């Protein structure tokens, strides 16, 4: 064991000399295969983490060993061999980039397939003079391009990889890490605490409106490398920040495990808008391969009048297990959840939200649009809970399902727990099929069947899509059409 550790430390030292990396065909530094305390120590060493962070990871790992995978979701998941995966991979070559011509053509090919506009590719690749969306690109596990840092810092906004933040801003990170999603929260969150590779840290100071949209692109590129992203965003009193997260992964045959944790903290009068487009590899038409996506996302609306808005477009992954939630602790706090989840072929999604009302006059809105095709299963699972001292709470939930085939499933599982009689809770739900009338009407006007489906589905999801920032909305609309290709015949 000692030798292994020494090897790991030596590798870590070597790795720390690499400045920037951005290609899909480059050599990777791997942690030893499998999951053990050594793996945890290796990762922590790679990151040059302080002692308290390593201790925290080890505590989480030891606790994780005592846990069993939860099985309450409507998901059929084969057993996962945690010893048969790598838990850390770091790209090696780190070029300095002046234009897209200098970017590895392999990477550009991937971008093109995903339909990422040139301007955005430049941002993504960190080309100088690219437009103002700050991108913290996570390529495999390490943040390799952090842009606009200076402009953000002038505003006092800290936008870093979480590894950097742990080293540089321990006083900001430490009090909040694991505060919103505790280390022992659930199986996958605990696993993440032990082995998280990298992620994003954002701090927006008092009274500051973040001068640009912050964006992170997550991509998995190494075969058999689990991805354990960890994100922490803190909006101090009166601050505002909008954060975009897009995930796409190239085709892989092996199932890949992804267990991310996202924690948001909104203090008095603060607002956080968190938007996700998730397009991990969903597996092939026979249900082979695809990403297992177990995500714990939670926001603490701690301050008075604080607000957190989750918007997600979930089209990828073989399995999605994800419930972005809001703990509405502050009086007059507001939580929102807007979701479009698309499943096709053999995809399974069990997703929704939890709105935990603790503060007086707290309000929440839930709009969920589930679209199922092929032989897929799509479940909305949502909890609205009103605590005994939370007076005058309001919730509105709209939960719609659209079916595209006769072999798919749409399920709605709402939980409502109200312990205060002043609460007003509304729940509306519909299930519909794309009608033959709609299809024929659209086709008679000139659209082929796939264009017609894409159009009708985008109309169905409009209430959610319009919550996305403009540039994201266009990409998301395209994605819905692409995800459902071949779903009608």
């Amino acid at each position, binding site marked *: 064991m000692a030798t292994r550790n020494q090897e790991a430390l030596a590798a870590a030292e070597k790795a720390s000399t690499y400045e920037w990396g951005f290609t899909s065909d480059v050599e990777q530094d791997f942690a030893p295969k499998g999951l053990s305390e050594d793996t945890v120590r290796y990762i922590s060493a790679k990151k040059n983490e302080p002692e308290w962070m390593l201790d925290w990871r080890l505590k989480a790992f030891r606790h994780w060993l005592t846990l069993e995978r939860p099985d309450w979701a409507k998901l059929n998941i084969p057993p996962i061999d945690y010893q048969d995966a790598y838990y850390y991979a770091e790209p090696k070559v780190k070029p300095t980039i002046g234009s897209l011509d200098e970017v590895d053509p392999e990477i550009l090919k991937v971008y093109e397939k995903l339909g990422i506009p040139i301007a955005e590719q430049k941002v993504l690749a960190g080309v100088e003079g690219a437009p103002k969306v700050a991108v913290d690109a996570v390529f495999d596990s390490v943040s390799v391009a952090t842009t606009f840092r200076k402009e953000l810092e002038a505003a006092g906004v800290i936008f870093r990889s979480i590894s950097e933040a742990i080293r540089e801003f321990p006083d900001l990170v430490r009090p909040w890490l694991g505060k919103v999603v505790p280390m022992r929260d659930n199986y996958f969150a605990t696993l993440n605490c032990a082995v998280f590779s990298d992620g994003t840290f954002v701090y927006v100071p008092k009274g500051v409106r973040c001068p640009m949209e912050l964006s992170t692109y997550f991509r998995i590129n190494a075969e058999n490398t689990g991805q354990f992203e960890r994100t922490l965003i803190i909006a101090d009193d009166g601050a505002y920040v909008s954060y975009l997260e897009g995930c796409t992964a190239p085709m892989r045959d092996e199932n890949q495990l992804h267990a991310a944790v996202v924690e948001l903290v909104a203090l008095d009068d603060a607002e956080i808008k968190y938007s996700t487009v998730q397009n991990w590899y969903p597996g092939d038409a026979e249900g082979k391969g695809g990403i297992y996506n177990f995500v714990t996302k939670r926001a603490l609306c701690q301050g008075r009048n604080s607000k957190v808005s989750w918007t997600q477009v979930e089209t990828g992954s073989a399995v999605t297990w994800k419930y972005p939630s809001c703990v509405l602790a502050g009086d007059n706090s507001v939580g929102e959840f807007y979701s479009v989840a698309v499943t096709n072929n053999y995809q399974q999604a069990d997703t929704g939200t939890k709105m935990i009302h603790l503060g007086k006059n707290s309000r929440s809105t839930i709009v969920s649009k589930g679209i199922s095709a092929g032989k897929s299963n799509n479940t909305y699972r949502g909890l609205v809970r009103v605590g005994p001292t939370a007076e005058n709470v309001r919730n509105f939930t709209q939960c719609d399902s659209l079916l595209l085939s006769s072999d798919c499933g749409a399920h709605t599982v709402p939980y409502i727990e109200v312990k205060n009689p002043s609460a007003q809770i509304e729940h509306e739900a519909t299930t519909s099929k794309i*009608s*033959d*009338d*709609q299809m*024929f*009407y*659209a*086709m*008679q*006007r*000139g*659209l*082929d*069947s796939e*264009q017609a489906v894409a*159009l*009708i589905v*985008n*109309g*169905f*999801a*409009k*209430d959610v899509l319009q919550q996305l920032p403009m540039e994201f909305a266009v990409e998301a609309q395209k994605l819905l059409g692409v995800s459902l290709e071949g779903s009608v015949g």
Partner: protein
Amino acid sequence: MLKINNLHATVADKPILKGLTLTLNPGEIHAVMGPNGAGKSTLSYVLGGRPGYEVTDGTATLDGQDLLALAPHERAALGLFLGFQYPVEIPGVSNVQFLREALNAQRKARGEAALSAGDFLRVARTQAGAMGVDMDMLKRPVNVGFSGGEKKRNEMVQMGIIDPKLAILDETDSGLDIDALRVVGDGINRIMRKPDKAVLLITHYQRLLDYVKPDFVHVLADGRIVRSGGAELALELEREGYGALAA
């Protein structure tokens, strides 16, 4: 332009069209009238290519092309437009978005360049204005919350924007008050009364024909054309009723 020969079609194995033959030449407007259940709507759906309407015999060609071998969107790209008796609602999709995507899909299929957003809006504004429809309605979701009359006007706006070669209008007059009837009638004349276009008007009543004067009137009964004549035939039917034809 449109040549239908000995067309037989079934719906759920039930024969509806039983040997229908009809020819429309460029520049002509034909009215097809007939009692309920005669197969009028079936004729429009069969020509449009609606799934579930099965052709068991006969042919239908548009400018020599076999319509029956084509998918609905391919027929649309050839220039066939169907005015629906019951226009369909598409929630969340604005008229403008719907029509621009549809028109550009047709143009692409014909090898024409796509219309830019600006060019499309100019066309849309002109066509909407001509039908007395304001742009706000075009920005609303397709037919959602429209009154019966608004839906029919909207069909005509769509026809104006798409500018088809052949329009098959299925009871476009139903649900219209007398003022709307005039507007819709004027629209049909303005858009379609041209030497290189043709119209098949399917209707129960003579009243639309006061505004759109047909060159030919056909009576459809039990899946066949049983009588053809000029505009005066419609007046005779209005007077005598379809019952007299059975004799």
